[in-house]
């Protein structure tokens, strides 16, 4: 390796504190926007109302009534498009010696009956959602076609190594959270943990690392390509593949946002922690921001390596270790691998480590 090469590294800021930026709130169903451009918002202000179709419930009527699909259909006492409520009588099977009553397991609308399998589908009632601002900010742009409302706010931005999923907001919890929360797992997340969160209606999972096979099982999307796809939950992996801890400096900031509204965007690789201080509004009135494009992430640029820079190791063996550059060797070292390179000394919270300059990113 030519040691006369300039010592450069990619600059990829992982943490940007208190920057003016946009947060996007989106109507995901038919509804009404209740705000207007330049309106100043507090987190609890309702900016839109819309309806969502929460899905459906299937019940195999033929099996429940121990009869054929044709006979099960004849036992139905409700018709297609009828409303039904939990506990209400749904079907009755009468025979010479007995009578079987089947009640509805849920509220909903009878959607259809499959004569081949004997399956009855009940669509849940549409749910009305009040969309809250979630942040202190000013409405900047309303895109009625896409249902996006762009709100100018001040936020701390944490950038991930990779992720997937559309922007979702929720209150920040650690390890486990209720429906519509953003859950932080401080080291490794797993496929079963993500599925568990998905089943509970969690909005997003943020973790230090994930095993590659779990990521591949969760999404068919290649982690090498940018995407606008959505698997039903937003996933943000801050460091890389493996059991990698979220760095202490980032964890400390996340803990100050516990139970507060945050926004996780997997496709744009960021977690936004909006300010909970209304004093930002006067600053925002004077601030003009370009709109973010979907799929546009913070670009990496190259910078010269210098002392005192904060860097993160990107080599597989020490991946995720973060610290300050305290020394840069003047001469090259030949590594055990046979490659000749210039070594850096990095001071992490727990120790000093020496790594080749190619194996760091400036953050």
């Amino acid at each position, binding site marked *: *390796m*030519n040691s006369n*090469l300039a010592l*450069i*590294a*990619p600059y990829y800021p992982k943490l940007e504190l208190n920057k003016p930026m946009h947060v996007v709130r989106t109507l995901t169903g038919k509804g009404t926007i209740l705000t207007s451009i330049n309106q100043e918002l507090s987190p609890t202000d309702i900016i839109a109302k819309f309806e969502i179709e929460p899905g459906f419930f299937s019940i195999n009527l033929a099996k429940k009534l121990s009869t054929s699909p044709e006979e099960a259909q004849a036992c139905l006492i409700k018709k297609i498009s009828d409303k039904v409520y939990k506990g209400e009588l749904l079907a009755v099977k009468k025979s010479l010696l007995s009578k079987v009553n089947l009640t509805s397991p849920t509220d909903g609308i009878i959607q259809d009956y499959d004569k081949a399998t004997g399956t009855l589908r009940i669509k849940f009632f549409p749910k009305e959602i009040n969309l809250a601002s979630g942040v202190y900010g000013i409405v900047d742009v309303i895109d009625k076609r896409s249902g996006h409302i762009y709100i100018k706010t001040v936020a701390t931005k944490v950038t991930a*190594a*990779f992720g997937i999923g559309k922007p979702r907001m929720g209150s920040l919890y650690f390890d486990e959270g209720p429906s519509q929360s953003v859950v932080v797992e401080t080291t490794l997340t797993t496929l079963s943990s993500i599925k568990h969160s998905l089943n509970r209606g969690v909005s997003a999972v943020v973790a230090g690392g994930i*095993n*590659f*096979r779990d*990521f591949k099982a969760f999404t068919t999307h*290649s*982690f*090498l390509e940018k995407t606008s796809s959505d698997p039903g939950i937003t996933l943000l992996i801050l460091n*890389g*593949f*493996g059991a990698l801890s979220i760095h202490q400096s980032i964890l400390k900031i996340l803990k100050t946002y516990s139970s507060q509204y945050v926004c996780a965007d997997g496709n744009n690789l960021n977690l936004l922690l909006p300010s909970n201080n209304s004093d930002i509004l006067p600053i925002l009135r004077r601030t003009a921001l370009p709109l973010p494009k979907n799929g546009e992430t913070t670009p990496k640029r*190259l910078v010269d390596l210098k002392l005192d820079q904060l860097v993160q190791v*990107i*080599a*597989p*063996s020490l*991946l995720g270790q973060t610290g300050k550059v305290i020394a840069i060797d003047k001469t090259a070292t030949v*590594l*055990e*691998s*046979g*490659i000749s*390179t210039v070594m850096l000394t990095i001071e992490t919270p727990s120790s000093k480590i020496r*790594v*080749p300059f*190619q*194996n760091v*990113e400036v953050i």
Partner: protein
Amino acid sequence: MDLPSALANFSNLDKLDVREINDRLSVPQNEIVLENYIANKVSFPQSIPTTQEEMEIDLCILTQVVQLNVNFFLNQTLKKIIISQEFADFYKPQDKLIQAVCLGLPLHGQYGLILRTLEGPNLFGTVLALTKRKNQKVYLQINNSNYSHTTPSIKTYHLKSDVSQIHLDGLPYKIYFGPKIEPGSLGLIIVCTT
């Protein structure tokens, strides 16, 4: 300005087969750990291996990268194997780099080994690829020194002077690359495959 990186030339690295890579390693790794290593390597292609163990994994990854991108390394018409300088920078020692590349290519017969640098291409070796039955021996004589190979195998001979006599299985063999009968600065690489 981009960071130097051998793997950044390829866009199909998500197709790497972990099992096949693990099978090539002298000490097989835990598959999950190896998968994570490979995925992180692909995410950060400019990173360099620091230990012999990491270099061995990287070389096995390279063999598969070569299998997935044959045309990047092989000109079958001109019978040339082309390796860019960045590969020589990232993979050491040079013998192992050449072997890793040869193992990934469909080779039959004789090839010139070209190192492409900023100054231009240089012939730096000759590869002789022989297809034999498994465990079949090949007998090589170079300037009156005798060697044998058992299929499958790959071996490099560093030949410092011009070579005037090569015999394969008792018969004279002519190497055509170079202005004289010269194997190039690296030497002669014999690849025996089934």
